[in-house]
Every structure is written in structure tokens, then in C-alpha cells.
């Protein structure tokens, strides 16, 4: 039962693409928990691991050589802003996951990033054309403060799941909370169900 705020009308910038509790943002705000890490592309790799073994690893050049998608998606930040039609370029997780061996029991993924950030996502949410390793934004290389050289892009979940500075994805038979998920944010983070915090 909502309390009515006397005289409040709001801006009513409603759009069917706007999930509940979100507002439209024209810019591209930056949120991160610490300093922006400095990456060296000469030694950079992206890996898929599981049960302590490396299933696949790609250098920067190898990742760039894989088929890339141009992706136009709406992104939804848990801090309430939504950016429509953001334009990315990157490699589908389908391409990467199809290249490695995965135990059928390994249904959960935990992304690891430079700087120590982690986030958890079910493996199913990384498949089926729903997730990418993105390295381009708006026709240019992804800038460091936005997660460059490369970040996860999982636009159907709140944007903290699209981990900046991603370096590996660890597969496991069990789910493990990541950084924000341990600190009170929802384990799954569906913006259309407004799963912002624990218990939502």
C-alpha cells in the first residue's frame, strides 16, 4: 500500500522498455567499488575454468580474432537508471562456451575480474545469445572506466552482473555469491521482477 506524495506528479518518461522503478538515463554513469584497474593487453587473457582446471584460455589477439557481434541492448542499473539502445561489440559467450568441455553438472558460473570483483550467474543465462565478452562500445574500444579492455555483458540482468574488467569465468556444480551478492544485493537480479536486494 503506497503512500501518496501530495502534489507529486513526476516526469512520466514512461517507455515499455523501462522496468519497474527505473528511469531513463541519456548518459552512461560509471559505478565501481574501487580504482579502475590497469590492464596490459600483452599479457591479458580470458579463461574459462572449472573444478580447478582451465578449460579454455584466449589471449587478447585470439579473442579479437573470434567472430564478433554488434549488440544493441537496453541496460538496467540497480541504482535506478536505464539506458536504452546501448551499442556494444563483443564475442558471444556461446562461442566461448562451445569451445570448451563442460561437465553437465556445472550449472553455475562465477565471473572473476581484475581488481578482485566477482559476480555469480547461472550458466543458462550465459547461453542462448544472452551474454557476451564485450570490448567495444559505441563504435570505439571500451573505455577503462566502463570496464575496458573487456567486460561481461548480460543485459537481461541488472548491470552489476555485467562485470567490468572480466578475466575468467569459473564453472561449478554449486552457486556461490559474488561481491555485491554477498553484500546485500539479489543473487539473480532480474530487473523486470525488480530483484535489487536480498529478499526481493
Amino acid at each position, binding site marked *: 500500500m503506497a503512500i501518496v506524495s501530495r502534489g*507529486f506528479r*513526476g516526469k512520466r518518461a514512461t517507455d515499455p522498455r523501462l522496468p519497474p522503478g527505473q528511469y531513463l538515463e541519456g548518459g552512461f554513469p560509471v559505478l565501481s567499488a574501487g580504482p579502475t584497474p590497469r590492464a596490459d593487453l600483452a599479457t591479458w587473457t580470458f579463461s574459462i575454468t572449472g573444478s580447478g582446471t582451465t578449460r579454455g584460455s584466449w589471449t587478447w589477439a585470439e579473442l579479437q580474432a573470434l567472430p564478433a557481434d554488434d549488440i544493441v541492448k537496453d541496460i538496467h542499473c540497480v541504482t535506478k*537508471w536505464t539506458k536504452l539502445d546501448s551499442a556494444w561489440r563483443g564475442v558471444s559467450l556461446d562461442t566461448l562456451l562451445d569451445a570448451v568441455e563442460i561437465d553437465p553438472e556445472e550449472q553455475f558460473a562465477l565471473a572473476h575480474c581484475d581488481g578482485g570483483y566477482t559476480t555469480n550467474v547461472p550458466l543458462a543465462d550465459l547461453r542462448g545469445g544472452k551474454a557476451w565478452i564485450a570490448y567495444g562500445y559505441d563504435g570505439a574500444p571500451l573505455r577503462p572506466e566502463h570496464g575496458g579492455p573487456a567486460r561481461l555483458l548480460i543485459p537481461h540482468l541488472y548491470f552489476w552482473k555485467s562485470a567490468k574488467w572480466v578475466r575468467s569465468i569459473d564453472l561449478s556444480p554449486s552457486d556461490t555469491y559474488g561481491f555485491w551478492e554477498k553484500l546485500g544485493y539479489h543473487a539473480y537480479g532480474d530487473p523486470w521482477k525488480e530483484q535489487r536486494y536480498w529478499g*526481493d
Partner: protein
Amino acid sequence: MIEAPDEVADLVPDDVPYSVPWRVATLVHRVRETATAMTLELDVPGWRGAMAGQHVDVRLTAEDGYSAQRSYSLASPASMGMPVMGAASERIALTVQVVDDGEVSPYLTEDLEVGDQIELRGPIGNWFVWHPTDTRPVQLVAGGSGLVPLMSMARTHAACGSSAPMRLLVSVRTPADALYADELDRLGPGVEVTRVWTRSGPPAWPGPVGRVSPAQLAASGFAPDDSPRVFVCGPTAFVEAVADALVDLGHDPDLIRTERFGPTGT
């Protein structure tokens, strides 16, 4: 490595210790801080306290059911896990900076009157927090209204007589934009305040005017060898520049926590 605190490190999904319900808050007092900022003191029945640096989500609802949510930092000192401060306190303070063309901040600062009710939930954000049990030196670096959560930390430090050395560097455009100006002068022993004016200083201001420089951070802040815990809050460009300069100066990135305010033009 940034690591979540030990007490939640072993948490597993489906093991959620609490939820964050919407609560009804009543405005009991307002304090104009600047021409564009207002502090709202609210009574929140059922409020369970907060740590210094946390924020709340505010929800406004129109008569026809349309609603809008935004986040605001708590300016009041911590009241969680601190029996001497009255953990049962249900009074909180938010400082709201009006956002040009904003949807919620103009209502909160201009239309909300004493006795009016709004909905809020929190506290939110268990990372950008300072615990008064931490005796490590603390460096706070604020840009504009990014001072609000850092003020909660400074007030917590003062209220519980922390022995942790604390330094606060505040970057503000002009004296007319300065939040909590008088209180910063009175924070007293244990909290050293340094001001940086980016456009113009007060009359007869002896220091430079301009953006925070690495040299100023080095001169007024703790040295990397002191291993301070660092909290930086402000607009994105400010936070990026300050955090980057601190890393260049030799500060451990793992001790630097950041929070950003407002949109960027990128």
C-alpha cells in the same frame, strides 16, 4: 583483492539473512544547506540503524499510482552496532542535492513539508562503509555533494570518539556551494579538514583555486606508508582522477573504496 567482510564470506544462495522492506518516513525537520541542497530529518518507525556511508532508496508515488525511486546517502552518523549511540534510533538525516531537471530531488527539497510522509528502504550498500572499530588511518576525499556519506563517517568518528586519525579533503566549486561549512570547522581533534575550491574561494583565500591535484593529495593526505583506508566520493570524473592519482602516489588499490554521484556525459 576486494573481499567481502568475513561475516558474510561464507554466505550461500537461499541463505538470505534479511530483506529490505519499504518503510514510511515522516519529515520532522528540514535544514537548508545551500541554495540547491536540503537536509531532511526523518522519523522512520522500524528503522534498524545504518553504518556510516550507506544510502537509502526513496520512493515517491503520485495519486494515480505513478512512482519514482532514487537513492540518497545518509548524512546522519552510524547507529548500527554502536550501543553508546542508541541503536534504537529511528531518526535519520538525508542531504539531497537538487539535480537539474531532476524528477525526485526538486520535490524532496522544495515541496516536501514537515509532517509529510514518503517511503524509503534501507540501509543499502555494505561496501562503502567505515566502521568505527577500525583504528587504521582514514582518508576521506569528497567532491561536491559526494561529501554527504563522508560526513556520516566524520560525524560517526566524532560521536564515538574514535582514535583513528581521520583526514577529510573537500573539493567544492565555491563557498556558496559548500555543505556543512560551519560544522566542518568544528569537527575538532582527530579530523583534519582541507578545503579545495575549484572555481573561487572565500575572500582572501590564500590557497590555489582549481581541481584537486596529485600534489595536494600528497600534501594534505596520509602517506601511502601510513596505509590509510581511503574513501572517495563525488562525480565520476572527480573519482576517477583522485583514485588514479592515489594509486600513482603509491596507495594500495585494495584500500581505496569509491562511490560515484550523478550521470556522466559519456
